[in-house]
């Protein structure tokens, strides 16, 4: 009996003219999004490789470790083909310098705001918006439509338990809608191989999990439609109700949650943050100026009344020590500025994380948000991408700065040695960095992109996966209870 009902559902869906049209549009959208995503990915890989080569080349050609700047780039991930997430909003590069903060800048959307207007139509967007509507379009009248046609009465005049009838409807609709959609998805996956997208084993596993969670999200909307269809008598009413629910779940709740979190947790603006940093640096510089004035006064206080030669000899004798003293104080100031900036950045980041955490908790009342969050998590394009890269870049800046410091010390010593040689041999001093030989940067630390392991990605995804499962089970259980009590007349 169950198989007969499932078969009928499959036939009813596949023979419906609206299925052919809708399936065609959805398939085209999925394939186009994957194809364009692959093209976009290849373009960004080319851009990334060119930019990193240019940086490597300029570092290799540098003639001094002083004033040496480095720039690191964020490596594009193949998963962004399916889940662009925030990868186009987050900057693609950061300067690495002991004098500047790590700051990801030049995002794709900041460079091409046109794309930011309508955003990138990726696989996740299609599932989240288009396929959820597709599920509603085919199941909004699953029960009340049968009632309107008189077929519910006719079917239930046979010895069929209502629970079995409903479950068969659910399974039939699910199979009838999911299996055909797997075809363009699998063709999209084939495109990855044909167009040489370098997917790792972990990437494939993440992609399989993404497809799985997409199907679960799609299943939720089928169960929801069954529920609403079992609670209403007319299909026109269930369609309107589902449309309103869809707007709430897909458009309003996620945005509302973000706005509510913004109101509940205040985060200083970037401008406020920058002005605080500038103020602190200016104060520190003023302190140094005052210290130097005082220091110079003290250094020559013992020489009052001394001749110019004595003063000159005193200066020459103490110059290195004083220079060192000045450098130490300057370094100390730089350290305190860096520490202050780090703390400020940390506070800002913590406030942002708190706001983000609250927004995510509130938005998870919508299965649409739960799906988006888990998809972005699986794709590695969630909001933590910025933190992951910035953490890695901070760590890299430490090692790069310490490398530079060592190399600059060596270079300074070499300058002194050369200066002494030229003084004794009468040779001309050649200023470093002004046309000399390139310095050896072969032992310079290299930036390594942060990689999220499969288990690190799957663990947080389980929360949203679990939530989506709970939403689906609740919707189906609700539909079951409503249908058992449904007035078929």
């Amino acid at each position, binding site marked *: 009996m169950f198989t007969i009902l499932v078969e009928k559902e499959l036939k009813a869906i596949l023979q419906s003219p609206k299925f052919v049209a809708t399936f065609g549009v959805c398939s085209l959208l999925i394939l186009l999004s994957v194809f364009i995503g692959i093209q976009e990915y290849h373009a960004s890989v080319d851009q990334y490789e060119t930019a990193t080569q240019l940086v490597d080349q300029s570092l290799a050609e540098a003639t001094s470790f002083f004033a040496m700047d480095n720039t690191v780039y964020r490596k594009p991930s193949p998963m962004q083909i399916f889940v662009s997430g925030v990868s186009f909003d987050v900057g693609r590069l950061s300067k690495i310098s002991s004098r500047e903060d790590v700051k990801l800048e030049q995002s794709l959307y900041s460079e091409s705001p046109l794309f930011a207007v309508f955003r990138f139509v990726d696989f996740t967007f299609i599932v989240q918006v288009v396929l959820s509507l597709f599920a509603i379009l085919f199941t909004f009248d699953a029960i009340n439509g049968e009632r*309107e046609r008189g077929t519910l009465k006719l079917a239930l*005049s046979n010895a*069929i338990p209502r629970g079995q009838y409903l479950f068969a409807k659910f399974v039939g609709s699910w199979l009838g809608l999911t299996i055909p959609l797997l075809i363009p998805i699998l063709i999209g996956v084939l495109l990855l191989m044909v167009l040489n997208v370098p997917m790792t084993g972990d990437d494939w596993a993440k992609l399989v999990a993404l497809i799985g969670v997409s199907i679960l999200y799609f299943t939720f909307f089928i169960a929801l439609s069954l529920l609403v269809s079992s609670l209403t008598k007319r299909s026109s009413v269930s369609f309107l109700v589902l449309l309103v629910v869809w707007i709430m779940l897909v458009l309003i709740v996620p945005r509302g949650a973000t706005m509510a979190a913004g109101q509940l947790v205040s985060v200083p603006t970037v401008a406020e943050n920058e002005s605080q940093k500038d103020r602190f640096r200016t104060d520190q510089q003023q302190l140094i100026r005052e210290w130097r004035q005082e220091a110079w006064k003290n250094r020559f206080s013992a020489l009052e009344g001394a001749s110019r030669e004595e003063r000159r000899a005193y200066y020459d004798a103490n110059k290195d020590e004083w220079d060192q003293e000045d450098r130490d104080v300057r370094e100390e100031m730089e350290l305190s500025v860096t520490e202050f900036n780090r703390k400020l950045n940390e506070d800002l980041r913590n406030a942002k994380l708190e706001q983000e955490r609250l927004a995510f908790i509130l938005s998870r009342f919508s299965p649409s948000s739960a799906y988006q969050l888990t998809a972005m998590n699986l794709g590695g394009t969630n909001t933590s991408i910025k933190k992951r890269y910035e953490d890695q870049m901070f760590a890299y800046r430490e090692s790069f700065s310490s490398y530079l410091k060592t190399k600059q010390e060596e270079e300074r010593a070499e300058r002194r040695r050369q200066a002494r040689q030229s003084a004794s041999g009468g040779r001309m001093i050649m200023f470093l960095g002004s046309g000399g030989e390139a310095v050896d940067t072969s032992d310079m630390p290299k930036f390594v992109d942060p990689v999220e392991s499969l288990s690190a990605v799957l663990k947080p995804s389980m929360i949203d996966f679990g939530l989506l499962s709970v939403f689906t089970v609740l919707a189906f259980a609700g539909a079951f209870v409503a249908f058992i009590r449904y007035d078929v007349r």
Partner: protein
Amino acid sequence: MEESNRMEEGTSAARNEAPLLEADGLTKVYEDGTLGLNKVSFTVHPGEIYAMLGGNGAGKTTTINLFLNFIEPTEGEARVDGIVTHKEPLKAKERLAFVSENVMLYPNFTAIQNLDFFAKLGGKKDYSKDDYRDVLMRVGLEEVAHSRRLKGYSKGMRQKCGIAIAILKDAPAILLDEPTAGLDPKAGREFIKLLEDLRSEQKAILMSTHDIFRAKDVADTIGIMNLGELVMQRSAEELRGEDLEKLYVQYMAGYMEKTPESVPHEEEPAIS
């Protein structure tokens, strides 16, 4: 005259057997207090056609819904082959076929696909396409229409498909809710012939209808219902020579004068 005698013999022979359909003090009061049915009792034996006549809201469809357990009785019982429908609904439904008024069926399926689905649902899995074609021909649906999708069908053609579905189930009892609605006069006559055939196959048929003339032509027993009560029940034999239309109007009018507007009820019943 000969045919009439044969019918009477058949009917009296049938009445010796246990009834297949029994309404025993069936009462239905809806949640809002509306009286649907008030202590309705009748029986339909194998080989008997029982026609329920009455206006809109008389309780004809409510009676059929109680036999199908689409609603539960407030009092009394509906029994199919001795099985109480609200206690063992699935078992009772195995013995019932049903033709509803204005059934649309599945518009994207052909007549044969519709028949195939409902026949299988009724537990008949061995029918071939030829069997479906035969039964469609029997209900008067032209062969050219058998493989067409139902969305192009007229109301009458869909009704014929509904009747074919009931025939295919081959159940001992058949419930017909306004089966002639939408049928043209020719199709109506064919339908009467079909009912006579089913009676000769010893089916117990309960039919609700507005159509007094067809009811008189084919029914062995006629019940007139008004405001949820069975106000008259007579056999075809008793009605011979009577003007049923006049009788119907008189009963309706007379009953309306003496019947109270509602029947008090003690507690709100649960609606299934």
